[in-house]
């Protein structure tokens, strides 16, 4: 199965990098090489494969491949940016761990197993808080991250266990279905740090560098959210049960997160907190998709998830590059940044277009579709306007950037690479000097690449929309069985749900109930 090399590369790489963590150079080298390998092995994943092992199975989809490719590239670029601007030593290893567990979560057709893998992903995320000296504060925050992960995982495991059995002799009130749905939806909200469950995410933002934030608060929960969407669409949405009261709760959390996160980002005094709240605000749209409880939201929700995690990675990289260029992250001290560094302004402009979007971009249309499916009537227009509130804090950043600097400030650092003539007698020293002289440029380059990638994903490049419209992992496509006596390859699933263009052998369409 083509997924195996990726899982091996990322999981073994994560373990090795963590084992060698006392030697930062070796650990980082191992992790970066494995991240490069992860990009290659993710590209080699073939959609439409499935394998049955001991009654359970793994299946690959085009969406899984795209998620992992983008995750590996974004993780690699964030790791490089982190090395350039200063980050936590475990971040590359944690990235590998998150990728490995996300691969498992997105390839397991059984939601009961997928939530276990997605919960483990959060366990890796807590490790970014570790610091070698004065680690008590980091451990405190890391424990809070772990608490959010485990509480969310517990709720999701219980919800999937309740639904994932024979319910033909159901004696309970239908409201129990609503409680199961609510438990999983709240679990997603907790994992994303949605308001009002944002306390751990806010403390995390206080503690870790901005370049590590998307890993813990966006990429790891994203896989969890995709599992939740698949579960809700297959287990809850087909039920003829009135769940309006429960949906209202999820809807309220989503809308509150979208609006208040933008307000919080607007009033923050440093850019890493702006990044943190921006992620929470975008995650609110994911919660809107879960609140929609409609199979039609499947494709737009998954499109939005991909666009949002890559765009927020780019925003975090921009924040890291800006902090390095101006030696400060305080918004008030960044007056004139856009004039001094037009390249950084261009990167932020790309991030704005990728994250807020314009009509016609896949991400923008996906978000509008989600809002339309989740909310009816005039309130839908208000919520749609609410999703545009990030323009307020972006506008503030640009206004500050165009302002006149107060007093004498640094010029924003060099924006061109500085490369001295190669010293063949001291190649290692030359490399070290060149790296040291170009750290700001490296951070800027990483941010620019991520911004371009984000814009491409937001525009629907790489077949994002088609991949998002594909079925969740299913064992009914070209089954390879390791169990004696199991049936061989079967015909692809014939879904009677609305179909979308087929992608590389993957049956497409919204998931059948």
């Amino acid at each position, binding site marked *: 199965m083509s997924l195996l090399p990726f899982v091996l590369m990322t999981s073994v790489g994560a373990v090795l990098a963590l084992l060698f963590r006392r030697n930062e150079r070796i650990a980082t080298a191992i992790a970066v090489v494995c991240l490069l390998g992860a990009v290659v092995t993710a590209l080699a994943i073939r959609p439409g494969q499935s394998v049955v092992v001991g009654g359970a199975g793994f299946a690959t989809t085009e969406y899984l491949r795209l998620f992992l490719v983008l995750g590996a590239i974004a993780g690699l670029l964030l790791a490089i940016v982190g090395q350039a601007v200063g980050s936590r030593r475990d971040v590359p290893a944690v990235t590998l761990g998150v990728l490995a567990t996300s691969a498992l979560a997105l390839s397991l057709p059984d939601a009961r197993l997928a939530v*276990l*893998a997605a919960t*483990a992903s959060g366990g890796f995320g807590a490790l970014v808080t*570790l610091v070698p000296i004065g*680690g008590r504060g980091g451990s405190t925050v890391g424990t809070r991250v772990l608490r959010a992960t485990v509480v969310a995982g*517990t709720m999701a495991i219980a919800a999937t266990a309740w639904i994932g*059995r024979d319910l033909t002799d159901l*004696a*309970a009130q239908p409201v129990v279905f609503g409680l199961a749905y609510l438990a999983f939806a709240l679990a997603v909200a907790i994992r994303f740090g949605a308001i009002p469950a944002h306390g751990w995410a806010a403390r995390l933002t206080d503690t870790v560098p901005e370049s590590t934030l998307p890993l813990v608060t966006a990429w790891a929960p994203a896989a969890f959210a995709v599992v939740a969407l698949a579960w809700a669409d297959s287990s809850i949405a087909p039920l003829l049960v009135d769940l309006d009261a429960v949906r209202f709760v999820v809807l309220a959390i989503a809308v509150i997160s979208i609006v208040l996160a933008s307000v919080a980002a607007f009033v923050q005094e440093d850019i890493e907190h702006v990044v943190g709240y921006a992620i929470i605000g975008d995650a609110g749209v994911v919660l809107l998709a879960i609140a929609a409880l409609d199979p039609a939201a499947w494709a737009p929700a998954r499109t939005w998830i991909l666009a949002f995690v890559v765009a927020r990675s780019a925003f975090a990289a921009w924040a890291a590059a800006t902090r390095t260029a101006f030696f400060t992250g305080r918004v008030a001290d960044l007056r004139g940044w856009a004039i001094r560094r037009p390249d950084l302004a261009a990167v932020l402009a790309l991030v704005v277009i990728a994250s807020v979007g314009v009509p016609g971009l896949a991400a923008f249309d996906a978000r509008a579709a989600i809002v339309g499916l989740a909310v009816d009537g005039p309130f839908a227009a208000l919520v749609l306007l609410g999703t545009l509130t990030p323009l307020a804090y972006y506008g503030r950043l640009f206004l500050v950037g165009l302002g006149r600097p107060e007093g004498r400030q640094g010029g924003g650092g060099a924006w061109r690479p500085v490369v001295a003539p190669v010293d063949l007698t001291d190649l290692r020293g030359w490399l070290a000097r060149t790296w040291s002289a170009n750290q700001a440029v490296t951070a800027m380059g990483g941010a620019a690449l991520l911004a371009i990638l984000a814009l491409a994903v937001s525009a629907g490049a790489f077949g994002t929309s088609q991949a998002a419209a594909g079925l969740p992992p299913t064992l009914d496509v070209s089954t390879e069985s390791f169990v004696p006596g199991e049936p061989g390859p079967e015909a692809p699933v014939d879904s009677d749900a609305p179909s979308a263009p087929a992608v590389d052998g993957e049956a497409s369409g919204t998931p059948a109930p």
Partner: protein
Amino acid sequence: MVALAVVGGAVVVVAARDTRTVLLALAVTLVASPLLADPLATPLGLAARFVGAILAVYLLWVVARERGVVGILPSPTGGSRIGWPAEVLVAGGAAVVGFVAHGLGAPAGGPPLASAATANPAALAVAPVATGRDVMRVGTGLLLLIDAALLVRIALGGTPGDVEQLVTAAMLIVLAGALAALAANARADGTGGYAFSDPGRVRVRREPDAHPLDQA
């Protein structure tokens, strides 16, 4: 007997202050939990869970052991604020609720004892998870909580398959490994043991309404 081991282990985990005692009890709970399934899991699945549980606790044990030679002294956890008898009562009440609510409205795939045992770690874990002020106490509470969720899975859905047991074991190891790293990091910083850096919400102790007669 197995259910009693799960319940007893959970009570000791939340009530004891000595870290090694807590971890030993946690090991008992994590090892005994998959044995509540009926029918029992296959040997391969059980082996995976046993290895996962033991390795998870061993990672914490490595952090918790005292090393007087290098100046690392025993670090107790917060322990129970209401004492072990109260925790036993909580566990008993939770067991009754779990047993009565078996299946939660539909025929369950697992035994009623699993439901009874499910409620114990869940109820007992609430206090350390919500009010714990040190890494080890919150962390062991979290492991109890996730074990309760796994027991719910057994009680409602029946015996998990081999792959599920394997994924479960891996998840336990990852969570315990992360917890061990966090605990080691806290313990290596100063003399505060596993305590959080911030005291959290300060509890205001209310003064007695009446003064003793001899001071009046």
